[in-house]
């Protein structure tokens, strides 16, 4: 039942993206999100698409894995495409007019753009972060990138600590859930039949013991952490220090340039680009 949990799925590897400093990757992620969401003109969209393709290529993640990760989103993707296709009211004559259904040219354009944009977002962020960054690297990077916020008393260290502990306990709690399910089944609990409401109600005898035990675990963990001299983030050192080198900076600068380029490409038309190229040569 819980075997297919793909949260924070990390594929160990040694690709360029795996080796990139996770802090740099976080900054690149922000730029990437801006880039994909801002791209409006065909040229800008093509650039963002090409960049997404580049990310996928250098991540070394197998294509079948990517397809599998996008599968649960098929419904959302299809829904947005359809909504855009049918509900965009464009100028001029509709291309197709069938009773109340009217499809305009701009509708098709919007649908395709939206589809590509969402797909880019999902695939790009997964290869950039989840597939190529171990959860611990990620929490460390978040703590480090957000550390300036400590000055205005945002509990950045505590937040990162909670996140890494949450990730640490996911497999433990999944195991426990499976045990509870088996135990309740042995007491003739029925999880599979009945309508939705009935099945939701059947989850209560799973959730309550799970919560109780999670709270008990938390108490014990707190004791164990205190025993090991935990006293918050102050004065804490790290076994693993994050290092960024030349390639990380080159990567960062390149992405920044592409993002800026997308802003400009948004304003340019094809003829302007052709004219611009002609000027150069």
């Amino acid at each position, binding site marked *: 039942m819980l075997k297919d949990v793909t949260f924070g799925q990390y594929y160990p590897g040694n690709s360029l993206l795996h080796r990139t400093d996770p802090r740099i990757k976080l900054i690149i992620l922000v730029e990437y999100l801006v880039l994909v969401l801002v791209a409006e003109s065909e040229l800008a969209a093509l650039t963002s698409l090409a960049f997404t393709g580049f990310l996928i290529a250098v991540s070394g993640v197998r294509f079948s894995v990517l397809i599998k990760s996008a599968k649960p989103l098929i419904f959302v993707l299809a829904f947005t495409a359809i909504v855009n296709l049918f509900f965009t009211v464009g100028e001029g004559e509709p291309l197709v007019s069938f009773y109340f259904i009217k499809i305009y040219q701009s509708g098709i354009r919007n649908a395709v753009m939206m589809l590509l944009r969402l797909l880019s977002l999902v695939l790009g962020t997964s290869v950039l972060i989840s597939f190529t960054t171990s*959860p*611990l690297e990620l929490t460390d990077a978040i703590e480090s990138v957000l550390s300036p916020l400590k000055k205005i008393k945002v509990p950045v260290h505590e937040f990162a600590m909670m996140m*890494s*502990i949450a*990730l*640490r306990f996911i*497999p*433990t709690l999944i*195991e426990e859930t499976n045990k509870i399910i088996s135990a309740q089944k042995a007491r003739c609990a029925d999880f599979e039949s009945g309508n939705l409401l009935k099945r939701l109600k059947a989850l209560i005898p799973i959730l309550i013991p799970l919560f109780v035990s999670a709270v008990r*675990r938390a108490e*014990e*963990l707190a*004791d*164990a*952490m*205190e*025993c*090991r*001299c*935990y*006293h918050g983030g102050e*004065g*804490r*050192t*790290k*076994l*693993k*220090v994050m290092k960024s080198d030349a390639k990380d900076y080159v990567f960062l600068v390149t992405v920044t340039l592409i993002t800026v380029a997308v802003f400009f490409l948004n304003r340019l038309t094809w003829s302007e680009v052709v004219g611009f190229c002609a000027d150069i040569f």
Partner: protein
Amino acid sequence: MSFIEAQGVEFAYSPEEDKVINGIDLKIEKGSYVSIIGHNGCGKSTLAKLLCGILLPSKGAIFVDGMNTADEDKAFDIRKKCGMVFQNPDNQLVASVVEEDIAFAPENLGLPREEIRKRVDAALATVDMTEHAKHATYKLSGGQKQRIAIAGILAMQPECIVFDEATAMLDPTGRKEIVSAMKRLNKEMGMTVITITHYMNEAVEADRIIVMDHGKIISDGTPQEIFSEVEKLQSVSLAVPQVTELMYLLEKDGFDLPRGILHAMDAADVIEKFMRRQSEND
């Protein structure tokens, strides 16, 4: 003053509740191997937490290496001196990767990176888990997890480790691994080991046994002394090791055998001698 000293300690989880610890005076010397036994709810786990300074006594005082556990300025130093391994291995591992978990304590102490690395490697070697350094903690067996938990404490370089029923949730193999680790820490590294248990075969390994009942110490002595008093242990619903019980029953049936035999081989020797003597007499 002894390494750990409890003076008239009483403890209740809240003022309305009954006292869990009811007047305990105790001295534990440096480098000793002490086992605390008692049936469920006799206060032995609470005593362990008091000794490490996780709980503070409601009355009386506990000193670790001369520092009062109630002294907040010293809390850090006391925890550094006296580590604790808990019952459930899952609930004391902080990180998802073995070496990162072991590094947790030295990281908290703010040690430089090279020193952390050194301590992590040394701790891993001590519990014989070096080849698992990069493994995910949740994939290990119970005994292995518990060894990682011990390594996590060792990386702090404490002088004393308290094991609070650290073997209770393990299978027999895991239990053996942990008991042999305890012995090694005590005999080879000179560490003070305090183990709370209800497995008598484990208690036998210690140099000194403390028996608790209703928040009080009722016996205190070497394993031989403690397990010679079979009736007294049975009166507080504690069992004795099987061999000891066998010898006790034989003695009760009129055979002239010594008391306080703890190991099967010793028992075999004693019985052999007894048989020889019998046949010589005949």
